[in-house]
C-alpha cells in the first residue's frame, strides 16, 4: 500500500468531485458533505483499493453511490406530493395535441455536437432549478447518472407510472425553458 497523503488527495481531486456533485444535488452544503464522505470512505477502505481502476475513477464510483444514497434518503420527503395525471395538460389541448402557444418551435440547430458553451449550462441549471425537486431528481438520476427507470423507481420508492409522468413532465418543462432562454431568445 502506497503512503497516503490527505493534503495531496484533497488538492488533486477535491474540486473535481465537488464540480460533479454540486450540479446534481443543487445544494453546496450537501455537495461538500458528499465530497467529504467520499474521501473518508476511500481513506478508510484504501487497503481494499486494488488499483484495477484509477484512483480518480474509484473516488468517482464512491461519490456516485453517495449521490444515489442522498436521493434515496431525500425521496421520502419528496414523494409526498406526487403529480396527478392532469399535470401536463397545460401543454396539450382537449384532444391532447400541442396547444399553439406551448408547441415546440424550430431551434434551427445544424449539429448534434455538444454545446460547448458555459452559458448554455448555466441556463440548463437555471431551468432544472425550476422543476419540482422530485422531477429534477428523477431527471438527474436518469440523464446525468444514467440509471434505468426500474432502478430509479426502486431507489425512490415510486411506481413505474409515477416515474413516466415525472420524467415526461420534467422534459416538457425543460424543453420549453431552454427554448425561451437559450435556443430562441
Amino acid at each position, binding site marked *: 500500500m502506497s503512503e497516503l497523503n490527505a493534503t495531496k488527495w484533497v488538492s488533486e481531486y477535491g474540486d473535481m468531485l465537488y464540480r460533479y456533485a454540486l450540479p446534481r444535488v443543487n445544494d453546496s452544503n450537501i455537495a461538500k458533505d458528499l465530497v467529504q464522505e467520499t474521501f473518508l470512505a476511500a*481513506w478508510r477502505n484504501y487497503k481494499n483499493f486494488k488499483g484495477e481502476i484509477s484512483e480518480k475513477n474509484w473516488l468517482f464510483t464512491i461519490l456516485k453511490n453517495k449521490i444515489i444514497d442522498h436521493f434515496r434518503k431525500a425521496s421520502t420527503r419528496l414523494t409526498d406530493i406526487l403529480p396527478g395525471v392532469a399535470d401536463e395538460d397545460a401543454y396539450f389541448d382537449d384532444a391532447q395535441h400541442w396547444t399553439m402557444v406551448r408547441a415546440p418551435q424550430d431551434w434551427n440547430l445544424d449539429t448534434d455536437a455538444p454545446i460547448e458553451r458555459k452559458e448554455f449550462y448555466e441556463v440548463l441549471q437555471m431551468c432544472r432549478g425550476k422543476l419540482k425537486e422530485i422531477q429534477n431528481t428523477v431527471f438527474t438520476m436518469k440523464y446525468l447518472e444514467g440509471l434505468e427507470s426500474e432502478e430509479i423507481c426502486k431507489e425512490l420508492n415510486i411506481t413505474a407510472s409515477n416515474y413516466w409522468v415525472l420524467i415526461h413532465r420534467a422534459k416538457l418543462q425543460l424543453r420549453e425553458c431552454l427554448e425561451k432562454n437559450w435556443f430562441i431568445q
Partner: protein
Amino acid sequence: MISCKEATKFISQKEEGKLTFHQRWQLWQHLAICAVCRLFNKQNKVIINNALHLHEYNDFRLTQSEKESIISALEKG
C-alpha cells in the same frame, strides 16, 4: 392515431426499449405526420446529449478552508 401527449411520452419510453412493437408502430405513424412532435423528438435528444456534459462546464471550487477541514477529518481517520 395516438395523441401528441402519448407520442411525447412514448419518446422517453422508447429510449429504454419500453415500447411494444405495436407502440413503436404507433409512434412512427404519429411522427410521420406530426412535425411538432418530430421537433420534440429532436430537441429531446439535444437535451439529453448535453445534460451529460453539465459538470464539465462549471468552475465551482471548494475554498481553502473547506479543503483543510476535509484534510483534518481524514487525518483523524
